[in-house]
């Protein structure tokens, strides 16, 4: 073989790697002759977390006992983009996988997850489920493609110590973006920490900008004539106001530090190390801060999403359980039953909720971190009270968040091509934060031009 030919083939191998995934496939029938159905559940705690693993196994065994016709296999798989595609292609996707809210629109568009509209209706209290909480699991076609397992509203996470050092009141976090700016300036000037920081990498830049745009009372995409289109590039849009606010903090006040390339892990690490005064994030960051980074629970504070003007709007986050598109009808039914048992029953049954909180607390999990209630107040409120009794985090620190949560409209992600929109907006946010002469309006126009055809293509 001539060297040039050989090298050419080496090049092709790069592409071949991608398609190796597509080459393997296969799915076994999982209904045995005696009517037993087998499903695979991902997300088993790793062996390193022995206590949580024991609790998980016990719960699964309990389910098996109550449902002898359903056989549950478990594994430790947790969603990530690469392996999900590989598993779908190879036919090895678990029956139940939990995915972040942000991934739903892509998975629905590609029809890589099963339609659960009918299965959900058979579940207990399904008619009492909050429409707001169910929204992120719905497609633009109105069908339901997942069952929420945990949801939260994005808010302001802040370091109470740094607030005190900067002469700010840690019990009164900024409620508007102009107050955020003032507080950030104070923290930057009076401490070594960065006043305000924001994620910008791996699509989190667009994600956070969307949350900000919502908090300015705007949306990112609007529907007209049955089709969705981007609206964030309109003059005076929420996204533009958000970028201007960031620009002021970064360049006029110099209160955002120099490092502007952070993903969610970088942010959690730097925040836990006390290097950052404020950021917007989900309350799940509180759990990571306490469990993973061993942060002092007394130091972390949680405020509601800062707003501008009168309309209170914020972005929803969290995880949704989805079911493999290759699952049979029986498997889908069994999986929905398991999701109800494992994730939902502790949200509508007071006794189970309390028992669950007690066990998880013993396992070292953070109890008392505010979440979005799934059910109508008559069901959700007593459950919340029972869980709060077991709290091992200073609930008082989250009061600024929880006390106003009810006033907020919980908005969902841009319905079409959310991830691609976020990717394009990453660049816009990075431009404004790393280049002093970057113009917010111009950057948004550029991002919109970049994803316009993708958003259109996705709806054909």
């Amino acid at each position, binding site marked *: *073989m*001539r*060297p*040039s*030919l050989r*090298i*050419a*083939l*080496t*090049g*092709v*191998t*790069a*592409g*071949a*790697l*991608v*398609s*190796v*995934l*597509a*080459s393997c496939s296969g799915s076994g029938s999982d209904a045995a002759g005696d009517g037993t159905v087998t499903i695979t559940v991902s997300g088993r705690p790793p062996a390193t977390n022995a206590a949580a693993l024991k609790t998980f196994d016990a719960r699964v065994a309990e389910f098996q006992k109550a449902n002898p016709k359903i056989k549950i296999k478990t594994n430790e798989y947790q969603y990530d*983009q*690469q392996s999900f*595609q590989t598993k*779908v*292609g190879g036919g090895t996707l678990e029956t139940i996988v939990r995915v972040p809210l942000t991934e739903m629109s*892509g*998975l629905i568009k*590609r*029809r*890589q997850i099963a339609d659960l509209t009918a299965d959900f209706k058979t579940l207990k209290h399904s008619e009492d489920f909050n429409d707001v909480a169910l929204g992120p699991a719905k497609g633009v076609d109105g069908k339901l493609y997942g069952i929420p397992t945990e949801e939260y509203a994005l808010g302001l996470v802040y370091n109470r110590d740094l607030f005190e050092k900067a002469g700010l009141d840690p019990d009164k976090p900024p409620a508007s973006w102009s107050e955020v700016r003032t507080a950030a300036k104070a923290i930057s000037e009076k401490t070594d920490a960065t006043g305000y920081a924001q994620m*910008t*990498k*791996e*699509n989190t830049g667009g994600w956070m900008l969307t949350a900000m745009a919502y908090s300015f009372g705007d949306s990112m995409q609007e529907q007209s004539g049955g089709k969705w289109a981007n609206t964030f590039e309109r003059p005076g849009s929420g996204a533009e106001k958000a970028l201007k606010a960031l620009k002021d903090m970064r360049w006029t006040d110099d209160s955002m*530090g*120099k*490092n*502007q*390339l952070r*993903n969610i892990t970088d942010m959690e690490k730097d925040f836990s190390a006390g290097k950052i005064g404020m950021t917007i994030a989900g309350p799940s960051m509180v759990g990571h801060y306490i469990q993973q980074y061993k942060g002092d629970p007394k130091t972390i504070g949680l405020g509601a999403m800062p707003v501008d003007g009168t309309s209170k709007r914020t972005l929803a986050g969290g995880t949704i359980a989805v079911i493999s*598109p*290759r699952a049979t009808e029986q498997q889908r039914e069994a999986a929905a039953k398991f999701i109800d048992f494992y994730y939902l029953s502790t949200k509508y049954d007071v006794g189970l909720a309390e028992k669950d909180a007690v066990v998880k607390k013993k396992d070292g999990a953070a109890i008392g971190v505010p979440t979005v209630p799934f059910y109508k107040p008559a069901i959700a409120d007593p459950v919340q009270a029972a869980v709060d009794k077991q709290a091992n985090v200073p609930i008082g620190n989250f009061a600024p968040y929880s006390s106003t949560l009810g006033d907020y409209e919980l908005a969902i992600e841009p319905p079409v091509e959310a*991830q*691609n929109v976020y*990717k394009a907006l*990453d*660049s816009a946010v*990075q*431009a404004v*934060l*790393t*280049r002093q002469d970057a113009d917010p309006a111009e950057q948004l126009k550029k991002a919109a*031009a*970049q994803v316009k*055809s993708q958003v259109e*293509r996705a709806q054909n």
Partner: protein
Amino acid sequence: MSRSQAPAAPAGNRTQKDRTRKQRSADPSAARPRTPDGPPRTASPHRGGPVERFVRWVRQGGVTTILFGLPMVLCFAYFSWWPIVQSVQLSFQQTNLVDPATWVGLDNFRHVLDDPLLWKAVKNTALFAALALVIGFPVPLFLAVLIAELRRGGTLFRVLAYLPVAIPPVVSVLLWKVFYDPDAGLFNQLLAHVGLGPYPWLQSTDTAMLSIVLEATWAGFGSTVIIYLAALGSVPGELYEAAEIDAAGIWRRVWHITLPSLRGVILIMLLLQIIGTLQIFTEPFVMTDGGPEDSTLTILMLIYNYAFQNGDFGAATALSVMLALVLGVLSAIYLRATRSWSN
């Protein structure tokens, strides 16, 4: 490779290539005296009909050769060639990996070529290759010559030079990411001592790519140094002795003896480097995720994003196929252009 069937050229005109070709075809039939003017002697006992040839092939161990080769061929066919064929096929299809794929003709290619990010990625990749060439190509060569010239401690420096290669790529990339931190990073702290900086490193569109090239050069130069050192060992010592007798200084020795002796190796290392840099992925993926403002987005990262972020395997394979074609053409042009030089 096809055996040279052309009539033997007059001895004076023979190039070196012809001689090597002849040496390589060292099987019995080629060793026989040729008959350049007439038809082949079919009556020769060695030629024979197809049956005789087959028997001779079996006797010479042909079957064993195939049996030994088979596992390797099957492995390559199943894990490499078959996926290559499939990826070409996939580039004309649209699939969600669940339902059967549908044929979409050239749609994927059109979609990729319409993507404004493609040209940005092409430009970035070319910039990376150019910077890597300017910085990453001479450094190992220079170090290899330097280490070879050392009278003492050669082994120590070899080990030191190779050490970065022994560190897993992602680890060294993460390490450098910490070094590049604009606030408290090692580089800015060190440079501050001599009154330089602070530099933005990865935080600016102007310096992000350069920072990545520096890391990639550091992480990769070790293996190249070792290869050059090995090649240096084969340069005949008499040449240097002769040069020293002629009072040639070190630079003249390097310029007139070392570099010309190494040109075959240099040529192939350069080609490998160009191909390697055009496929750069790990460094920008881990360090910057293509940012800031897509200034470090490379072609391979775009392929990755198509496949895994968008789940668009059609677009991903279409771009892969295009990349492979471009690399193949580039390699062919390169080898043709440097053919005379390498001999």
